[in-house]
């Protein structure tokens, strides 16, 4: 009998707690597969965030460290400096990375810290119940912006890849999404490339993943992915944002 599909060895055999249609489970799978393909499950260290993926350490098969809200890049900095030959990945959501941890991510990029950040942008705070994030789109409703995000009141959504691209230490930034299979395949390639560049020691590597949050967006999973492609992908351009010449 041929095996057509199996769960990645990079994940533990556990049920995920994520909502139907959530992108976290998909991105977990992609990261785990990349680790497995690069043969680094046994050496990788994953730094998990505060947010819906706070339990990521219960799912991944590699060693994991739970960081405080926003501080994953600080934790990742220390872990990479002390374990320079091992794959170090921080996994962060938009509230964590772009709001409370804005200083940490910018300075990790400035210093050119040689770890990879996988940034899940779903334009909302998930775990705390749908509050406005720095990446919430104009007009998008949130529990703390019940009439929708207004430019004059809340400012415009933050394009994190472009912000970090201004830092010399950022070696690679790509924005991907996981709304359908072709995009999901591209996302995996981007993550794998970031890991490979990290292991080659070129600098800070960053992959932003546009990801659906059907629950807090108040949509079905199918509607959510359609909304993502029509609205988020329009504001947050997909593709390689920066690739430093090695």
């Amino acid at each position, binding site marked *: 009998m041929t095996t057509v599909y199996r769960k990645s060895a990079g994940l*533990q055999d556990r049920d995920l707690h994520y909502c139907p249609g959530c992108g976290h489970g998909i991105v977990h799978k992609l990261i785990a597969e990349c680790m497995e393909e690069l043969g680094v*499950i*046994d*050496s*990788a*260290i994953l*730094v*998990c965030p505060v947010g819906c993926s*706070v*339990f990521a*350490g*219960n799912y*991944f*098969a*590699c*060693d*994991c*460290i*739970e*960081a*405080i809200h926003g*501080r994953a*890049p*600080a*934790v*990742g*900095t*220390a*872990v990479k*400096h*002390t*374990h320079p030959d*091992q794959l170090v990945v921080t996994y962060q959501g938009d509230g964590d990375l772009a709001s409370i941890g804005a*200083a*940490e991510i*910018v*300075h990790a990029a400035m*210093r050119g810290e040689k770890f990879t950040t996988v940034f899940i942008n779903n334009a909302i705070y998930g775990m705390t119940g749908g509050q406005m994030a720095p990446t919430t789109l104009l007009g998008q409703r949130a529990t703390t912006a019940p009439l929708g995000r207004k430019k004059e009141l809340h400012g415009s959504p933050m394009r994190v890849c472009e912000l970090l691209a201004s830092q010399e230490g950022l070696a690679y930034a790509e924005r991907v999404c996981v709304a359908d299979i072709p995009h999901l395949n591209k996302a995996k390639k981007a993550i794998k490339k970031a890991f490979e560049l990290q292991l080659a020691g070129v600098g800070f590597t960053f992959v932003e993943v546009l990801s659906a949050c059907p629950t807090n967006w108040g949509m079905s999973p199918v509607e959510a992915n359609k909304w993502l492609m029509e609205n988020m992908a329009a504001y947050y351009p997909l593709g390689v944002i920066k690739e430093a010449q090695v």
Partner: protein
Amino acid sequence: MITVAKELWKGNEAIAEAAVRAGCRCFFGYPITPQNEIPEYMSMRMPQVGGVFVQSESELAAINMVYGAAASGVRAMTSSSSPGVSLKQEGISAMCSGELPGVVVNMMRGGPGLGTIQPSQCDYFQATRGGGNGDYRTIVLAPCDIQEAVDMTQEAFDLADIYRMPVVILGDGMIGQMMEPIEWHDIPKRELPPKDWTASGRKGRDHSNFVTSLRIDAADCEQFNLSLEAKYKTIAEKETRWAEQDTEDCEILVVAYGTPSRIALSAVEELEAKGIKAGLFRPRTVWPFPSERLAQIAAQPGLKAILVVEMSLGQMLEDVQLAVKGAKPVRFYGRVGGMIPSVEEIAEEAEKILREVQ
């Protein structure tokens, strides 16, 4: 070259060197007066010993870098002064919850807010009552001079590893900025538990390690808090430290820690020269606080009163009152905002109290 038995060191640099000798291999810090010599020294010294130095973007980042280094199994340290240590409380609380070892130096300066850059002891409550969110403690070592700061720094890393928690070295700007001769002692090596819990890569281990401070289930979280409580009881039994001088038959006992304790020592000597029976009790750990021994001294029939001296408006005072339980009058003399109590002020206060309680 002059050969000397003792070496002249500035407090901050001596503490940094002591940490290096204790096996500290990661230092993360952010500039703030009066502790800048520690990160400056470490920026030079860490690369020499194959260690890591990062000047962080903030105190928050610095303590979280310590968290990361500790979680991956490396001896790590940060230092700051009062306003900066306030920012570090987030990470200290998380380290207590994640049961991560680390050393935090606080060269206290006058507060509140930005306050002043001169020495103070106004962070006693913050240091001894946890300081951040949650029901936790840190071991708090309180050196009175540079020699003790050096010895304590070397021990702090072992204490942190044994009990898997942050250890605070509670100094003041005076200890950081002054110079005096010290000797390098070999600190007795203690048996350390294996670091089999670190997230440093599985490397053949049959399971993954997950360092976390989140226990979402209330019953689990309660159990964890109870396990911390048990640990703290063990620490109180085994690690409480103090020093005393002329306490056997004193009629006035001065209680002080850190810089004021050595000023108080001179005051005690001055009082004794006048024929007054004075003694000094000096907590060397302020958490755990040496309550039992202090209560014993308070019960001595010849003792008339206790004078607590601090560079605060009376913080350790509360621990002394809790220990003495009203057995003897407890009075207080403090200078704040960066002012330092003088030998004469302390001696005068002691004499005044003795006149009043006669």
